[in-house]
């Protein structure tokens, strides 16, 4: 059946949407959300409802919602607060839907909120901020942000979050209690004898393998990693990649071992693509071997970076892969990264990308 693909593009100046019936010709619309910075937008595949989380310097954080594919929007931050005397929330950074229909929001400063009424109101999930390590969490370059949010596809009590730069935390009881899950991931910025701490790693992106929720991948400030036990231990998958630094990661929608990364040249080397040549790296065997995918991507004078949530896949076959640069160029591949095209060259800073496939 023909499918309509909708690309949700979170930018510093609002949410944009690109639509395509064939993944070759794209029509861009927006900006939506009153041009607020939108850090992450997702769509509920069951209903098509779009949620967009962000924050505005004047008016604070909010989750925007559209039930008509972006034509009209409402917004709410009811309950999105740590309470009087606590630090005000600056922005929403990540959104995820659980198998029970609950909507989660990760925010800056790092914490987790849950909505059981489709984003109309929010309640704090206090266990994470009550964790004894929390006073020691250090903000990363973008702030103390909860940017990665995974819910087990069948068990809504199992949650993983990634916080810059506190690391990965896991809850098996719906968010009441949490434990750090960073064993085997490095913190190269610490003194030599403290490079494998319990927490404090700078995770950049955390993704789950399709059909195997205990297989997780992460792009870290200091390396790329795979876990086969839900994050209890991590193994480096850096070998064969041009650097150990990057921001985003994206898992294939069906193949457990297929992962896409977009390494940058290094944390003190400018943080653009190696040799100023853009390449997406694909592994089909869980990170043991890597292939650079460059066809159609700029191979000269490309001093661009890609942020942590700005690489994604669609659900179709073959899978479409998409990334957006911090310079506002949007690239799409309809064939798992073999061939690429720039489909929007002049957007604002692209912060996140997600897709929705609709039966056409």
């Amino acid at each position: 059946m023909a499918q309509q693909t909708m690309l949700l593009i979170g930018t510093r100046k609002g949410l944009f949407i690109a639509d395509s019936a064939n993944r070759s010709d794209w029509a861009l619309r927006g900006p939506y959300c009153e041009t607020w910075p939108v850090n992450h937008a997702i769509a509920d595949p069951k209903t098509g409802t779009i949620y967009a989380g962000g924050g505005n310097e004047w008016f604070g954080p909010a989750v925007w919602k559209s039930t008509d594919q972006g034509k009209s929007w409402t917004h709410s931050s009811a309950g999105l607060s740590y309470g009087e005397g606590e630090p005000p929330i600056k922005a929403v950074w990540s959104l995820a839907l659980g198998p029970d229909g609950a909507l989660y929001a990760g925010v800056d400063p790092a914490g987790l909120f849950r909505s059981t009424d489709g984003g109309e109101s929010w309640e704090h999930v206090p266990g994470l901020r009550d964790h004894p390590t929390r006073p020691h969490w250090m903000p990363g370059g973008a702030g103390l942000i909860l940017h990665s949010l995974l819910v087990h596809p069948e068990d809504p009590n199992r949650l993983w979050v990634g916080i810059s730069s506190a690391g990965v935390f896991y809850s098996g009881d719906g968010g009441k209690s949490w434990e750090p899950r960073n064993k085997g991931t490095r913190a190269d910025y610490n003194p030599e004898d403290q490079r494998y701490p319990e927490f404090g790693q700078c995770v950049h992106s955390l993704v789950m393998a399709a059909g195997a929720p205990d297989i997780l991948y992460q792009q870290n400030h200091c390396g790329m990693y795979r876990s086969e036990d839900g994050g209890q231990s991590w193994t480096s998958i850096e070998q064969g990649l041009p650097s150990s630094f990057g921001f985003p990661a994206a898992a294939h929608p069906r193949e457990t071992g297929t992962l896409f990364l977009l390494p940058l040249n290094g944390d003190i080397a400018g943080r653009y693509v190696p040799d100023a040549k853009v390449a997406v790296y694909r592994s089909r065997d869980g990170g043991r071997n890597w292939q650079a995918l460059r066809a159609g991507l700029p191979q000269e004078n490309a001093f661009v970076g890609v942020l942590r949530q700005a690489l994604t896949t669609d659900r179709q076959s073959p899978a479409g892969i998409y990334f957006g640069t911090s310079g506002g160029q949007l690239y799409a591949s309809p064939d798992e990264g073999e061939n690429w095209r720039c489909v929007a060259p002049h957007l604002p800073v692209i912060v996140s990308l997600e897709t929705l496939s609709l039966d056409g």
Partner: protein
Amino acid sequence: MPVHVTLPAALLPLFPGAPRELELEAATVAEAMDALEARWPGMRDRLCDSSPAIRRHINVFVEGRRGALETALPPGSRLFIITAISGG
């Protein structure tokens, strides 16, 4: 005697139907926020944070002087709520 309130232009698209200028009964800026919240649920969250305080990049002026939540609003006074310089 009501207070005259001017809302920031950038706030209006967030609350369809909200006018740029209105009148309401309030003895302090905090009470004015309560009255705005009652008319347009969610508006207080856009103007105030959880401290509680007026948001960092929002300014309120009462009779031409910079104010805060506790600032008194004399009968018939003018309350200007404006967006400060911010962003990039």
